[in-house]
């Protein structure tokens, strides 16, 4: 997928003024927030499990080469073909090859963000293949020639009315006067159409939520059952997984699965969690005859020696974006690449470079909610701040911005000058703010005042007020001590 991350500011501006999008966003991520909270409350151990999950992932990353080797050994013993892809282009080439060897015409796909990352659909279509997304949200997005706007709810930016309009526009083989009032009627229509694709498909491609070193298995987690029909009906099942997906044992994955659905959709458990190990066995009447796993690096190994290693703990639940005030305001597309929200603001610059995606970590209020809900306890604000530092070091910023930061740094490191300067500024702005206590317009702050008033300082700095309050509190404390 070609990034548009460098146009982030413009993307965000357009998103804020897109009425359809704003309607779709109102309430949807909020619903997921409430459901997660309820699921967490039903499991008193949830917060302790986050520590367990973090430790499992940290341990596995520490021995990543060995766990991948163990996984590969067991997978091959079960009959899997394992392919290693250092880059997106390598992965595309490998999958193209598998499809050609299978004589494929129709390829069905389960949901996979990794396949978005390597821009697989366009590549396979260019080879003359029909590629069909089968997750309902992915199908909607594919019909509209869009990309997912959320990692677990790809069509969260669409309203039901838009879906109906698209189905009427594109499913032209169906009667024009059919009733499509209920969401269930739309789901049924897609089910009938996609059922035929599952049956006709030659190759089924899925992602992998995890790989298990103990057994050589790959795992998918879904609610619709589309991933299972994709991988069970086609002759060839291709899994695409990144190197960070491996876990040691079934016990380890059990603990992490306790966190995944609860964090993602607020379900206690997703409807379908499927472990695939090798192709169909002798005597099996169904299942794929061939099972391939393509393991992709695409820049992840380079994070291991850096502080960004922690982002590799991510299990792609989407909780960070559901809770993010910026994501809730602009949706996923504005982020300009595969992974939106706070995880995207950390992962995208890590994978495609701060130079290209430096605006994303700036699009955060650092409210800290993402870290507070992350089931793997990834310190997302800290990692965004590291990207900001890199961006500053690269000298990538506009000169005014850079000069402002340098001036600020110079003043902030000199306490006496800082105190004088802020006292002066607070007094001046406090007086200028007048009776309203706010500015409707302010030079150098039009980015703020265009949308809302800027509250004026009340005439005193925080340091002044703090000192006074401390002095005020000193006496009663001392009095109590004497009295006791």
């Amino acid at each position, binding site marked *: 997928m070609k990034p548009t991350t460098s146009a982030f500011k413009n993307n965000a501006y357009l998103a804020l003024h897109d009425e359809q999008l704003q309607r779709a966003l109102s309430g949807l991520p909020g619903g997921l927030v409430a459901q997660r909270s309820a699921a967490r409350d039903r499991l008193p151990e949830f917060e302790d499990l986050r520590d367990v999950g973090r430790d499992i992932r940290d341990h596995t990353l520490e021995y990543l080469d060995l766990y991948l*080797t163990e996984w590969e050994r067991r997978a091959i013993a079960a009959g899997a073909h394992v392919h290693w892809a250092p880059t997106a282009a390598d992965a595309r080439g490998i999958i193209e090859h598998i499809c050609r060897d299978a004589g494929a015409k129709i390829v069905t796909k389960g949901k996979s963000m990794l396949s978005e990352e390597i821009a697989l659909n366009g590549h396979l279509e260019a080879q003359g293949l029909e590629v069909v997304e089968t997750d309902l949200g992915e199908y909607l997005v594919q019909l509209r020639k869009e990309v997912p706007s959320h990692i677990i709810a790809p069509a969260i930016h669409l309203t039901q009315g838009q879906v109906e309009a698209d189905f009427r526009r594109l499913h032209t083989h169906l009667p024009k006067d059919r009733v499509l009032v209920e969401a269930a009627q739309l789901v049924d229509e897609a*089910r009938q159409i996609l059922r035929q694709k599952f049956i006709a498909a030659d190759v089924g491609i899925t992602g992998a939520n995890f790989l298990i070193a103990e057994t050589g298995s790959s795992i998918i987690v879904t609610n619709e059952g589309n991933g299972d029909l994709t991988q069970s009906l086609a002759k060839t099942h291709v899994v695409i997984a990144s190197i960070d997906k491996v876990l040691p044992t079934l016990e380890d994955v059990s603990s992490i699965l306790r966190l995944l659905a609860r964090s993602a959709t607020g379900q206690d458990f997703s409807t379908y969690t499927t472990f695939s190990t090798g192709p169909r066995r002798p005597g099996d009447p*169904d299942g794929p005859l061939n099972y391939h796993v393509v393991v992709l690096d695409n820049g992840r190994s380079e994070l291991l020696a850096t502080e960004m290693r922690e982002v590799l703990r991510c299990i792609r639940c989407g909780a960070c974006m559901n809770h993010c005030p910026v994501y809730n305001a602009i949706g996923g597309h504005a982020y300009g690449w595969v992974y939106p929200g706070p995880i995207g603001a950390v992962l995208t610059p890590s994978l495609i470079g701060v130079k290209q995606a430096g605006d994303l970590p700036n699009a955060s209020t650092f409210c800290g909610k993402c870290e507070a809900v992350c089931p793997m306890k990834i310190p997302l604000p800290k990692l965004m701040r590291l990207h900001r530092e890199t961006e500053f070091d690269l000298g990538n910023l506009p000169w005014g911005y850079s000069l402002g930061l340098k001036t600020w740094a110079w003043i902030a490191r000199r306490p006496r000058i800082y105190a004088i300067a802020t006292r002066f500024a607070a007094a001046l702005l406090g007086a200028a703010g007048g009776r309203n206590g706010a500015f409707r317009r302010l030079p150098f702050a039009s980015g703020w005042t265009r949308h809302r008033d800027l509250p004026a300082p009340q005439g005193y700095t925080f340091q002044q007020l703090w000192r006074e309050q401390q002095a005020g509190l000193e006496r009663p404390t001392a009095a109590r001590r004497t009295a006791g």
Partner: protein
Amino acid sequence: MSNRDVIFAKIRKGLAAAAPVPEGRRAKIVADRIAAKHRHPTPARVAGKSHADHAALFRSQMEGQSATVLDAEKPSDVPGLISAYLRQHNLPARLATGDDAYLAALNWANEPALTLKRGHAQPADEVGLSRATAAVAETGTLVIASGADNPVTLNFLPETHIVVVEDQDVVGPYEEAWMKVRARFGDRAMPRTVNMISGPSRTADIGGKLVTGAHGPRRLCVIVVKSQQTAASPNNLTFARP
């Protein structure tokens, strides 16, 4: 250098830069971890609870996920329960099912109206019948292992899925279900597919509204069969419950 070598060289370089640990010690740590199958804490909703508690929790969790749970006092009651369920939902009395010996041994003759079609599911099949290796109480989750006995397509193609599980195979946490899978298939081995199933298929992709019956079954009916001391069961390689 092969693609594989390129990736592993980069991973090792990244790890060595962060924390150099002698290679031999690393290999032992990994081998021990996989061999030990260390269990992390299990939720209090199942840990240390009685089998009756597990059975009750399994039922309530399963029902909370829009599934039907029926009880069979003895294996011979199963065909009758299935017939009644199919009639109640106005479904055809035809079942697609695998070669599962336990299911085959049920007294189907008592329900002459029911026909059984052996093998994997075909697109026209409306009802699939499977047997679960385990049922997990903590989230109301069936564990079904694929094979000639329980073909994987039965779990997803038919609109209605009926799953039989013996009461003795109802366990508390997921970890206990893995013990049953390991007992059947061996250490570090799995069948082609293990499906963990928690309710009928669902989606919320259209306007955030939850719809039951997305691509997989619209209905899931679980029949829990009271265990018989004398019942012969080919899959019955389970551990004695404490």
